[in-house]
């Protein structure tokens, strides 16, 4: 297996921190330390527009609000987290492209989105989310899009809920971490939030009756945990089963599996919160430590949604690495054993610069080789966003 570079976007004027693919449209948002977010097309790999003027300092993280695609409510919503200690909500009306998109969402006869006619984007800077005392490091929308989580160097994780338009309410301020919180991620289906931190731990949170509380603490890493990502659940998995991957400054990528979870029983027999007996607690254990692929801090890790058991990571050594989980003939007592192996690596992915973020995304461009193919998007200190395809040797 080999990671082959498809192409790259023209370099931004400054370091690029993170890229996030649109949940449904062939769009990509890349945030940079030049205080802007660049929207580019995943169909033609060309920059479309730039969002600026909202933040006074670098923008560290960006996230698209899920299921607000053109079908029901013709608007794209973007959340940005910046070093100026605020998060921003941006909206853009997708209305005028309705006739293209509305055709039934059949892949091959997809509408040509946005590339021919002159794209007069205007992203409205809808809301500024104030509250954090220092740099905001990460923002994430919950699966249904109803909650937004933000975290900051002030050691806190905030959960916001969108009331009516442009009005967000803080429904939880979680002060669990003892140091700078680096990343927040929502479980793809459940309302379960995970955060990783400079204090070397990962913590998970759930709503317990009316307030949010920590339901699990994952220790094991020996240095800052930079990024985490949930595995996309598959029907084959039991309801309790769920896996999380994390990467850290201790040069390891680890897999954590949930063994038991008190699934959120109904409200009725729930004792008043003060008396609750920690029933929301979950048991997560470290179930694997991926083979070492990086010689410097690992900044980002992402679980492939289309292909089970496939993960990509990137780091300060400028390398990308793809790992896959293999079934292995067990020894005597015959039960199947799983093992992770590195299947593809590429050094100097961004020249001599560090790679800050990597993720999978649905492939929209002409070069797509098969239905449901995913490509890897890497974002680096050289201000470049590169696209890679997994090619068989």
């Amino acid at each position, binding site marked *: 297996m080999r990671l082959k570079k498809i192409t790259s976007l023209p370099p931004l004027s400054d370091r690029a921190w993170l890229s996030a693919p649109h949940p449904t449209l062939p769009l990509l948002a890349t945030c940079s*330390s030049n205080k802007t977010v660049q929207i580019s097309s995943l169909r033609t790999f060309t920059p479309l527009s730039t969002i600026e003027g909202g933040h006074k300092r*670098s923008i560290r993280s960006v996230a698209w609000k899920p299921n607000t695609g053109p079908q029901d409510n013709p608007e794209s919503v973007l959340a940005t987290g910046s070093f100026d200690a605020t998060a921003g909500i941006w909206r853009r009306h997708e209305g005028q492209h309705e006739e293209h998109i509305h055709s039934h969402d059949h892949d091959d006869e997809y509408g040509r989105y946005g590339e021919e006619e002159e794209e007069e984007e205007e992203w409205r800077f809808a809301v500024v989310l104030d509250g954090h005392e220092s740099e905001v490091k990460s923002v994430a929308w919950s699966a249904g899009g109803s909650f937004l989580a933000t975290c900051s160097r002030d050691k806190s994780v905030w959960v916001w809920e969108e009331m009516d338009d442009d009005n967000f309410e803080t429904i939880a301020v979680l002060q669990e971490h003892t140091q700078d919180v680096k990343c927040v991620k929502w479980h793809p289906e459940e309302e379960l939030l995970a955060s990783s931190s400079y204090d070397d731990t990962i913590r998970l949170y759930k709503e317990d009756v009316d307030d949010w509380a920590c339901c699990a603490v994952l220790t094991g890493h020996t240095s800052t945990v930079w990024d985490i990502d949930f595995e996309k659940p598959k029907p084959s998995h039991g309801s309790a089963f769920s896996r999380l991957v994390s990467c850290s400054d201790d040069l390891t990528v680890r897999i954590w599996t949930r063994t038991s979870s008190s699934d959120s029983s109904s409200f009725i027999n729930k004792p008043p919160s003060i008396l609750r007996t920690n029933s929301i607690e979950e048991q997560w254990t470290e179930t694997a430590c991926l083979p070492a692929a990086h010689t410097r801090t690992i900044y980002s890790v992402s679980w492939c949604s289309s292909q089970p058991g496939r993960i990509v990571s990137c780091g300060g050594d400028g390398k990308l690495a793809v790992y896959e989980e293999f079934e292995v003939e067990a020894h005597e007592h015959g039960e199947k054993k799983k093992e992770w192996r590195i299947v593809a690596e590429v050094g100097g992915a961004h020249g001599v610069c560090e790679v800050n973020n990597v993720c999978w995304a649905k492939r929209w461009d002409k070069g797509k080789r098969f239905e449901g193919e995913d490509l890897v998007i890497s974002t680096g200190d050289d201000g470049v966003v590169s696209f890679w395809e997994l090619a068989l040797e």
Partner: protein
Amino acid sequence: MDNENPTILNASDLPSRKRQIKRRLPSGLSNVDMGLLSSIGPTAEPNDPFSTGNVSDPLSSGEDEDSDGDDFDVEQIDEQEIYDLISTISDPEHPLSLGELAVVNLPHIKVTDNQDRSVMSHVLVEITPTITHCSLATVIGLGIRVRLEQALPPRFRLDVRIREGTHSTADQVNKQLNDKERVAAACENESLMAVLRKMLETCK
């Protein structure tokens, strides 16, 4: 002030690049006031201003280390060059340089400058605070990191660390100094950058 009376080195003792004074008798008699040694007898024939081709060593500047060796063979970046970049940073408290205060020392710098410029190279700088509880160790470390990030080509990966056993909270300081995101954020903090700018003003 944490340490009022630190031990200081004499500026002229600090390690410097030995100028390879190749005793070559430069050409031409015109540079008479450059001291006897350089005016003793020309070697190349007096150059004819009209002709283009004279291959004689251009303006004979004798000691200037620039003039020897051809113009394009590579001089690798070495420990001394890194030392020269950071030894003249001034201490935030004393009107003295990090070199004089022995906070930075040549033997505590390690450089691996990769011949192939398309591959990452690496610099490790270990600093020795003047006293074990020096509260300014982080600012000094940050000053060194910002100076080297501005002065070295992007292919260099940088680690700045407090030397083993020289500071009570070395681990926390090291972790902070090498957290790329916190360093980036610090560089956007106006008041901190003002302090750093003052420390870097004395760099020559």
